[in-house]
């Protein structure tokens, strides 16, 4: 026995030394990085995703980990500070030696992380709906692209609610700016006149909404049905909806469809002024099926709080994590290049009763749901797509990206390949 043990021990040591020499981290655990703001203006949204990853790591460890190794979560707090996101990414990959990162929420944080993660060849799963116009070799986008959230929501407003005038209100950074560009192009293409579109941007954490809400009221008073398409992010939403309520703008007069307001954002506030307003996501906690029920039960048990809620980015994290596990098992290693290739084509159940599939542009196929806010902070689903929508990284409505596709399989292997000129133009941040 002793002899075998010591020779096994020697083999392990040798392997360990060789691995170090080959600079492949031969850790005894597989480290999973968590890069979400736990303080600052985005903490209201991101903290729950950190807890979701911790829950999935714990559950995977109960199943025995991956490839015989246990998982270890490494949590850092970039504190809603966008440059700090880049620093923390570097720290996670170079110092903490994580094999995958689950992180980011705002697009500006993701854009800060991109150069670092591409330089160090890391792997990140990005679980939040975003503006598209990007496809990186090192990032997998498990949240909605504009054609899986924004465009269907606008279609619903136009067709089912007869909306004729549009207010596009957003926080001032890349996601709302790009999404509104796409939406404006889409609306104009559908025949809406420029006079019927009002666009407005506010800084993060903006709290004085008096004049803007008053302008929205005036814009909506012309007799044509008006709706607000809101890409307002973070806690600025709270005083916004409060002011709408105070100035007497009800959801029946001017409905607000939000893309960044989910169950989590609603759980900390008084939802009375919001009842009847809408949100567009690919998942709601109120979706009725057994997979979702199981997930919710597991979540409430893990977080030891019956009042906690689930939301779309949590489902995206769930899908992303399960896909990563499957890909690592398929590739037989956590090496980023191998896992990244193995991920394409992987399918895993989502929580709305279907299957999510990872496509070659690093985006998923997802259903689109529109929900109405109820007074208990949950959503009543009022509309959904018939099937799954494949995420399109490059919007067909913007002239610069109409001809672009992303395809990370051979022979193209490019994030922004121009189908007309047949050229790959590389990533611009």
């Amino acid at each position: 026995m002793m002899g075998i043990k010591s020779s096994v021990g020697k083999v392990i040591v040798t392997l360990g030394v060789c691995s170090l020499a080959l600079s492949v981290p031969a850790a005894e655990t597989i480290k999973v990085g968590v890069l979400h703001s736990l303080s600052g203006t985005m903490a209201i949204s991101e903290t729950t995703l950190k807890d979701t990853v911790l829950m999935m790591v714990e559950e995977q460890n109960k199943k025995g980990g991956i490839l015989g190794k246990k998982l270890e979560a490494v949590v850092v707090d970039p504190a809603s500070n966008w440059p700090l996101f880049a620093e923390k990414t570097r720290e996670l990959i170079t110092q903490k030696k994580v094999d995958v990162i689950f992180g980011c929420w705002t697009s500006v944080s993701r854009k800060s992380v991109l150069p670092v993660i591409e330089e160090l060849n890391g792997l990140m799963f990005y679980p939040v709906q975003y503006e598209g116009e990007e496809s990186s070799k090192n990032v997998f986008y498990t949240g909605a692209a504009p054609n899986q959230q924004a465009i269907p929501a606008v279609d619903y407003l136009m067709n089912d609610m007869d909306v004729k005038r549009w207010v596009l209100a957003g926080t001032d950074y890349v996601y709302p700016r790009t999404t509104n560009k796409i939406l404006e192009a889409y609306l104009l293409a559908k025949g809406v006149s420029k006079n019927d579109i009002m666009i407005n941007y506010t800084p993060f954490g903006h709290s004085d909404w008096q004049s803007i809400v008053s302008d929205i009221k005036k814009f909506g008073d012309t007799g044509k049905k008006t709706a607000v398409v809101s890409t307002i992010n973070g806690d600025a939403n709270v005083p916004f909806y409060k002011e709408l309520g105070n100035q007497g703008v009800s959801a029946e007069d001017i409905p607000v469809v939000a893309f960044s307001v989910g169950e989590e954002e609603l759980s900390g506030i008084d939802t009375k002024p919001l009842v009847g307003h809408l949100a567009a996501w690919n998942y709601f906690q109120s979706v009725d099926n057994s997979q979702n029920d199981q997930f919710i039960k597991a979540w409430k048990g893990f977080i030891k709080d019956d009042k906690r809620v689930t939301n779309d980015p949590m489902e995206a994290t769930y899908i992303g994590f399960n896909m990563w596990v499957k890909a690592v098992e398929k590739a037989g290693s956590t090496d980023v290049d191998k896992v990244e290739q193995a991920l394409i084509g992987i399918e895993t159940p989502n929580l709305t009763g279907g299957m999510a599939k990872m496509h070659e542009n690093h985006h998923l196929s997802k259903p689109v749901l529109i929900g109405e806010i109820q007074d208990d902070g949950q959503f009543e689903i009022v509309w959904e797509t018939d099937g799954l929508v494949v995420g399109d990284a490059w919007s067909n409505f913007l002239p610069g990206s109409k001809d672009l596709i992303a395809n990370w399989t051979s022979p193209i292997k490019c994030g922004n390949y121009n189908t007309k000129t047949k050229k790959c133009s590389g990533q611009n941040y």
Partner: protein
Amino acid sequence: MMLRFYKLFLLTGLLCLGNLSAADEVLDAGVVVPKIVPSEEPVSEKTKAHQVIGQLAGVKLKQVWPILKEIEKMLGAEGLPLFQAIIESRLYYQRVDKKIVIIRKQNNGMYRLFDPVSLEEIGEKKKSSLKKVRSNNRIRKNLRVTISRLRLLSPDVEVRKVSIHNMLGNLDHDTIRLLEKISLDEQHQSVLELIDLALALYYFQNSDQQIVRLSALELMSSSLEPLVRNLINDVLKTDSAGRYIEQDSRVVRKALSIKKAIDAKVRFYEILEKIFFGLSLGSVLLLAAIGLAITFGVMGVINMTHGEMIMLGAYTTYVIQLVLPNYIEYSVLIAIPAAFLVSGLVGIIIQRSVIRFLHGRPLETLLATFGISLILQQTVRSIFSPLNRQVESPQWLSGSMEFNAVFSITYNRLYILIFALIVFFVLQLILKKTSLGLHVRAVSQNRDMAKSMGIRTEWVDALTFGLGSGIAGIAGVALSQLTNVGPNLGQAYIIDSFMVVVFGGVGNLWGTLVGGFTLGLSNKFLEPLTGAVLANILVLVFIILFIQKRPRGLFPQKGRAAE
């Protein structure tokens, strides 16, 4: 008088159009209901209604509205509680037998159940045994019109006015006849004016007699309702050649003159609204900055913990609402002295333990207070949570006061404006009339002289700092009603507070007042033109330039010691 004359004209027009039909189906209650089935079979009528109501259980959204219309036809005003319950999300059905009920939530998580028509209490059940009857925005909007129609004869004046107002956009033949019938008995002037408006709107659009349309326009001319303005705009629509689509030139001329008058009034009210927004923003800045004006102005201490004093005041409000969950209406009033004490005490502690040792060294004071602000932020994060806390607004602070269709003032901002002015004047009183104020002013003007006069400058320092911090705490209570309460609340207001104090003149309270209001007004007048982000930037640039020209601010301190 003129209005009544025109109204008679309209009624005459009505007669000429021969619209009065004899078969009046309106009951005494003034509600349109189909002919009553003779009382031989009252039971089946009731059960039929209940059957229809029962169809609401579990049906698809698209079918809800037709069922509701059926219910209105069958029950009329008796269906009001059911319709109201849908709007308030209180109409449910029992999973087990699909019986429709109206619920009332209890504190213990149980629901009391009531029959939707007779309103008698049926029992008490758990939430899980019930499912909500589905509705959406469109259904609720239509229901409001239905409810308004059924409520036109409520004994409450306000209810009648709101009902008529809700129907202005949905005037049809039956509604107009109903309104005309009601107007014959209506006593209240303001209700009559609304009915006149409704009639005018309807007849303008549905008559082709010039005199009827002109008198309708005249009736509408004093109204600022968006419906009226949209109507006038529609009348003045031109085709691609620039000619008016409306054929009658007298109507066009009248519409033009009305439009001019309305536009002028609307512009006036818009400026009034902007002034109010600017004043309310200014009052928030004033409240936040006035404490700093005292500590910075009187003691020359660059106090970076000022933002955290505001934050502590906001959290005090949160704690009071936690401790007294049944007294939300009074929570804000209780919080004011509580926040003053909490922030004041913390301020005094900071002053006695750190700042008095750094007297005369502004850079060290700045660094030390910055460090203390970080400690305070992290303490709050550790005790409460890094996430924002929910502070509820009492009923009397929500909603708005409507002066007319284009101008309304939100209550919370109005009360905060008044409150800020009260705080300002109380502070002035303290400084001018009390001995503490006298000592404070003496110490700020000439410390050594004050010492030699026997004033205990150490205690004056501590109390001044406490006063300034306490006022910041009160500002926090006000801010808790307007914005998110989180550990970073102070950071959002510290820069603005320094801006106001420096702009207004260090040490001068009037400077802070004028500075705060000026900045608020400029920001709000710029915002519609440039957007919120650029407006902030421009105001900042303006202050920087202003300080270049007048480094001491708007109202600098006078006196040799101030040099």
